[in-house]
């Protein structure tokens, strides 16, 4: 282990870090006589200075790539140093980090070398080394290479806990524009295949508990937000379809930030990070709150409100449904009240069996009264400062703007050229 490895790790981690997938949940692989197991809740081990969690050792096998996608740091026209790890090196790094409890497992991605099939085989070889030689039972997230042979895709799912292909751009046109070498079918093909393999594996496991698991933690994907003019409506509708038709576990959103972010540029109406945050909120509403995409966004308002979370936004458009009586509403109705989440809705249901709940009880149950107060009654009592009809309701619900830090005024004479293509976001496939 020399400085050589340090250097390689640095370059390959740098290339992989724009993939936002981080979770290590959903698999409960047991430790059968080797090292490691998977915790079904997932465990975060640390958080970097951008506030994102470190759960898996996220690296590329190699950052060499034959493709030239405009949004990617590893594109072939980018002038960076190109290195590669051997399967042995990947395994040793993973085990070394894992034994010290730095990580929960491995996230292995790669640039495409020679051909998709060749690259996919490299990845599988590394994972196989880990699983059979090192008897590693921890979490492994493996990237699928678009265009790889279906047989290789199937093998990948048998070794890994979660597999993923990144869709990257929500529409066919955007993909054509920014990633001319990748066709949408080459990306969606493996996703469809994985989805049907998961379904058939579930049936097999019902027949026999000994049938090997195929991708027990399912599959995920990632979408870039803000690099193309796609609307939130297109994105959220796509996510909904992915969850419903392909049974994806997660869709990740990655805000497109040009590398040269400059405070001297005119302030944009909404920051990309805020938009990303709102999309995640909408995503949660789809998966856990029983909302559908068309309820959150429609033709008339194709983008999410940056000032309000999507649930509050929905509630304000449907004031006729409120206020809801806490002691009588069904679980589904409670879930739709701003300020009540899955846990607090469950607690309300559990607690009100013992007797009616008053307003004071709700705070103790963990309900965010700041938002909920306008939309609920408890034993008929309403405690919002203004009624639902009030015109100031919206402004009361919008988060108070943060106070600006004083800054020194200065004249900036040099205006750097902003290269929109030299951008961040996702590393690779």
């Amino acid at each position, binding site marked *: 282990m020399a400085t050589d490895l340090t250097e390689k790790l640095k370059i390959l981690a740098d290339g992989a870090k724009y993939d936002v997938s981080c979770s290590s949940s959903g698999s409960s692989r047991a430790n059968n006589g080797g090292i490691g197991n998977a915790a079904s*809740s997932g465990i975060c081990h640390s958080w970097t200075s951008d506030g994102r969690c470190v759960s898996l050792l996220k690296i590329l096998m190699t950052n060499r790539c034959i493709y030239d996608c405009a949004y990617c740091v590893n594109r072939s026209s980018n002038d960076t140093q190109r290195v590669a790890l051997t399967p042995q090196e990947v395994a040793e790094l993973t085990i070394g980090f894992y034994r*010290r409890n730095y990580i929960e497992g491995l996230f292995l991605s790669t640039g495409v070398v020679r051909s998709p099939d060749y690259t996919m085989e490299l990845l599988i070889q590394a994972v196989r080394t880990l699983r059979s030689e090192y008897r590693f039972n921890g979490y492994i997230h493996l990237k699928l290479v678009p265009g790889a042979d279906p047989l290789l895709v199937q093998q990948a799912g048998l070794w890994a806990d979660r597999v993923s292909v990144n869709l990257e751009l929500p529409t066919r046109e955007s993909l054509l524009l920014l990633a001319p070498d990748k066709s949408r079918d080459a990306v969606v093909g493996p996703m469809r295949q994985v989805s049907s393999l998961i379904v058939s594996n579930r049936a097999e496991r019902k027949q026999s508990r000994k049938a090997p698991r195929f991708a027990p933690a399912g599959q995920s994907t990632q979408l870039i937000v803000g690099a193309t003019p796609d609307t939130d409506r297109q994105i959220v509708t796509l996510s909904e379809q992915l969850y419903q038709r392909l049974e994806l576990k997660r869709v990740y959103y990655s805000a497109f930030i040009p590398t040269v972010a400059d405070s001297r540029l005119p302030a944009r109406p909404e920051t990309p990070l805020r938009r990303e945050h709102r999309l995640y909120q909408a995503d949660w509403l789809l998966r856990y709150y029983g909302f559908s995409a068309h309820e959150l966004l429609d033709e008339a308002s194709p983008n999410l409100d940056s000032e309000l979370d999507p649930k509050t936004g929905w509630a304000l458009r449907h004031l006729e449904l409120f206020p809801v009586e806490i002691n009588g509403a069904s679980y589904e109705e409670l879930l739709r009240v701003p300020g009540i989440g899955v846990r607090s809705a469950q607690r309300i249901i559990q607690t009100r069996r013992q007797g009616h709940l008053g307003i004071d009880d709700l705070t103790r149950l963990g309900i965010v009264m700041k938002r909920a107060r306008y939309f609920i009654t408890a034993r008929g009592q309403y405690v919002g400062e203004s009624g639902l009809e009030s015109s100031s309701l919206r402004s009361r619900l919008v988060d108070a703007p943060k106070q600006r830090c004083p800054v020194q005024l200065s004249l900036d004479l040099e205006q750097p050229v902003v290269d929109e293509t030299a951008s*961040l976001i996702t590393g690779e496939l």
Partner: protein
Amino acid sequence: MSCCYSYDGTLAGLLTLYARLLPERVAVERISAVLLDQQSLFSSEICIVTELTVAEAFWQRLNSRLSDNSLKLLRRCLLADHPEQELLIYRYLLLEAEQGQRIDGMLAHPVVASAWKLTQQVGREAHRYLGFVRFQQLQGGIYYATITPDHRILLLIGSHFAQRFSDQQWIIHDQRHGEGIVYDCSSKEWLLLPMNQESQPEITPQEEQFQQLWRNYFQTLAVPERKNLKLQQGKVPLKVRACLTEFGGTI
């Protein structure tokens, strides 16, 4: 009349106290742990003398009486490190004696809510420490980690590490509470023991390299354009950083 009570600071002592006070439904204002040699003649506290048989019988009774939910709550509250945990538990048990298993659904009751909140804190910290433990390989091959949690969470995280690292010798040392878990990989058993650190442990040269690799990797991973130190500090509070390799902490 409400009173202040004290016990000798052991679990048996506390259980004896509960066994004595609960049946009488005594109103209690304060319960404090007073070590034997610090007991004073003139204090107004009533000292409950530990009796092992009483404590054991009481613990058996609790185990058969309480619902799974209440037992879990009780266990976690006992592991907490909170100035009023004895009193919180006492009030909870008092209410439980009155309400029976109905108490599981009384989350909005002030007594239940405060005990529940403490339970949540302990559970949450235990989960967080599944990630925050950092082992260092010492000369001789043992993996050693130090932690400084607010609550005594070792008993809650022991089995997780025993399953995960079943083929390595490891020790997790809670420096704040002076206790630690020792795992023996030949017998596959772990033990909670009182523990003190007397000398700086020696680490292997390979360990040094891995720590350096990990620090470099961690630095690389941050996306500078998304810098958000406030969010980071919410997730990794300063108090835990002393024991985290990537934040420059060593044993």
